[in-house]
């Protein structure tokens, strides 16, 4: 794993301390790190070159401030510049202002996620009080039509009835007519995946465009795409003049630098991001969040959202009550551990918290393996309710019984109990900090709340 950009810049800038101004000379190494970080995030090399150039111009002559380290200053410039490139604050809502039915066309490479995104978009539009019609126009991939039909059924959306022996253009024309007659105000055209150099299929897209006059042509791009993103986006844009981009599969650990490249070379805004396989996992794009992700600066907002998505609200409320009364017991400890587990690996969680990069390294090796988790669960499950509520009563013979019951050993039980006592202390401290201390407490969570570290 690569270190985050901020850490690397810190080390580069150690020698810069005490110098008054940033000059061509002393930021050279830093810019190299910026360049590598962007390349590592799959931003296209030409885009990187231009970008680093503009950062250089901005950075030279900037005073090295006392309160900020030079590294932080560069990061700041890079961050702001990136947000600017990504079109920070610009309106990226869908343009549906036309006489209904309005056509939306989805285009992209094979496997980018067009069909799934069609469904998500249909759901989104339904939420906007529109009446969308899904149109499967992918007659090439086996069962692609079935896929959209199924998605439509799951969402309660109507799917146009097409079959694989029709011509895609004919399907689209017929669908527009059908929509007009039946009162659908928005038509989402799901086209087949294709390479931008396949002129046979690309011409087909041009024909569909001419026939349906879509208000939006959305280029669906996989967040994991590498340097190739630029070639593909330029190819589609030249022929079709796309109106926007949807970045999919951003729920993985890809940095999504491709979005930056696409925006930079086509000038077309990213309108939505796909964040999961469930049909509600579509979100309006936030440039600043993606930028933080590219720079490895941590993404607190996404973390909070992720936490919200897995934490059971009732459970959380119950836990809060218990915390208030200082009754955090082994049962809660287990519940919490399981919830954290649901959020993904510790590494990915830590990666989202700013400044945790370093800590992550220290924790390496001390991290809970899946196996440890299972053992801890087994140990707690082997306790009686009484023991779980009050671990003070667990004496020697109880320990032996628990160890036997869980297939572990007494030292392991002892270790868990010790960790738990420490966790309880952290919880008490958290109480004192109040809600404001929550973030600080998250640091503590890594160390003390879990039975390792």
């Amino acid at each position, binding site marked *: 794993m690569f270190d985050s950009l901020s850490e690397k810049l810190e080390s580069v800038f150690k020698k810069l301390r005490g110098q008054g101004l940033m000059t061509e000379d002393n930021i050279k190494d830093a810019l190299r790190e910026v*360049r*590598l970080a962007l*390349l*590592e*995030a*799959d931003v*296209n090399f*030409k885009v990187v070159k231009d970008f680093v150039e503009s950062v250089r111009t901005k950075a030279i002559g900037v005073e090295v401030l006392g309160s900020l380290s030079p590294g932080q200053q560069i990061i700041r410039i890079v961050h702001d510049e990136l947000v600017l490139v990504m079109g920070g604050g610009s309106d990226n809502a869908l343009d549906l202002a036309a006489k209904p039915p309005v056509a939306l066309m989805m285009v992209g*490479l*094979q*496997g980018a*996620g067009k*069909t*799934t995104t069609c469904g998500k978009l249909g759901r989104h539009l339904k939420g906007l009080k529109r009446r969308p019609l899904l149109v499967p126009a992918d*007659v*090439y*991939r*086996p*069962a*692609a*039509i*079935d*896929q*959209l*039909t*199924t*998605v439509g059924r*799951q969402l309660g959306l109507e799917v146009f009835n097409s079959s694989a022996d029709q011509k895609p253009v004919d399907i689209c024309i017929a669908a527009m007519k059908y929509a007009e007659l039946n009162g659908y105000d928005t038509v989402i055209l799901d086209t*087949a995946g294709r*390479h*931008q*150099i*396949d*002129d*046979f*299929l690309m011409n087909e897209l041009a024909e569909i465009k001419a026939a349906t006059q879509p208000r939006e042509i959305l280029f669906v791009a*996989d967040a*994991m*795409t*590498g*340097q*190739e*993103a630029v*070639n*593909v986006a*330029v*190819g589609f844009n*030249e022929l079709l003049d796309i109106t926007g981009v949807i970045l999919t*599969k951003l*729920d*993985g*650990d*890809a940095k999504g*630098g*491709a979005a930056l490249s696409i925006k930079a*070379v086509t000038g077309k805004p990213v309108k939505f991001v796909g964040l999961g*396989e469930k049909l509600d996992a579509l979100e309006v794009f936030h440039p600043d969040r993606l930028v933080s992700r590219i720079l490895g600066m941590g993404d607190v907002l996404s973390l909070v959202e992720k936490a919200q998505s897995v934490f059971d609200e009732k459970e959380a409320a119950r836990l809060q009550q218990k915390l208030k009364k200082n009754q955090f017991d082994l049962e809660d400890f287990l519940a919490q551990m399981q919830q954290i*587990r*649901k959020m*993904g690996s510790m590494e990915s969680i830590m990666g989202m918290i700013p400044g945790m990069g370093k800590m992550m390294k220290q924790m390496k090796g001390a991290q809970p393996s899946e196996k440890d988790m299972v053992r801890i669960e087994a140990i707690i499950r082997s306790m009686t309710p009484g023991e779980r509520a009050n671990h003070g009563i667990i004496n020697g013979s109880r320990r032996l019984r628990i160890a036997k019951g869980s297939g572990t050993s007494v030292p392991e039980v002892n270790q868990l109990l010790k960790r738990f006592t420490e966790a309880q202390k952290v919880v008490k401290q958290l109480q004192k900090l109040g809600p404001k201390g929550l973030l600080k407490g998250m640091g503590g969570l890594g160390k003390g709340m879990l039975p390792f570290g």
Partner: protein
Amino acid sequence: MEQVTKGFFRGLMDKIGVTSQPDDAPPSESEEQLQQAAVVADVQEKPKGEPGFFERLKQGLKKTTDGLVGRIDTLVLGKKVIDAETLEELEEILITSDIGVKTTVELIRTLEQRLGRNELKDGAALRAALKEEILARLVAHHQVLDMTGSRPFVLLVIGVNGVGKTTTIGKLASRYSADGRKVLLAAADTFRAAAAEQLESWGSRSGVDVIRHKEGADPSAVVFDACKAAVARQVDILIVDTAGRLHTKVNLMEEMKKIRRVIDREIPGAPHETLLVVDAATGQNAISQARLFKDAAGVTGIALTKLDGTAKGGIVVAVSHEFALPVRYIGVGESIDDLRDFNPQEFTDALFQA
């Protein structure tokens, strides 16, 4: 952006030259049979790497060449002296060819050492050395998949969403059944809408049976049935299709471990091969995919898909080298016979053909 545009048009022209047949039109019944016959003839004639293929791969890789080698040539050819700056630029070129940071740094270090021993006199020598080093890294782990060891031979196919798992399986099934082996497919992607239908459609094209359940069923249950059926019907090869999953999703990775456990319990020692399918357009994330899938699912081979576009196959070098994984197959198109054995020499040759 001039270069990008130029590359695009050149790619377009290449494509016109290569694809005279509308290869994406859905094959009709008779065409299908013809195709199958062609596959059979193909395989019987010469099992791998028939003449047309090298040309084809080269065409497919032409774009990669434009990117990687074109730039390397501009950088090094005609250069009398190789200095640190040249290497630094070379490093950037390699990283931007999706070769991956770690592998790139290592390649550059090796070149530096050779430079230090005065082995590299000029640009051409540097280029040759680079080619040699890349080839060496691909050859080191290269191994053709041997499916004769056990019966049924279980092939588990995994990967993130949308890389072409089902399509690859369709091609594999056609190829092996054309080879005269009895193949059975298991539709263990019960999550994505119509995934089983897609697999069935491939299966019917090559006359291969598919074991499937209803959508939303437990994939392990499908696998269980498939294993039972594979043994009962005495098939040679069982290919298991799984749902695409992002490698960072803990619960989905757990699900995959369970699938593996079920397979191993029903057919001891299986799966004999776990094939990770990687999209050629993937960037640095492929490294992370390979790492996590290898940890969780014990990947034993790579299939690289969608090489018929303009995508660079650069990641193969990184993934194969960093994780000691052999590249087994490459996908070079959408029709049923567009799956080939990976050949490092040809791949590297094509990569460096200006």
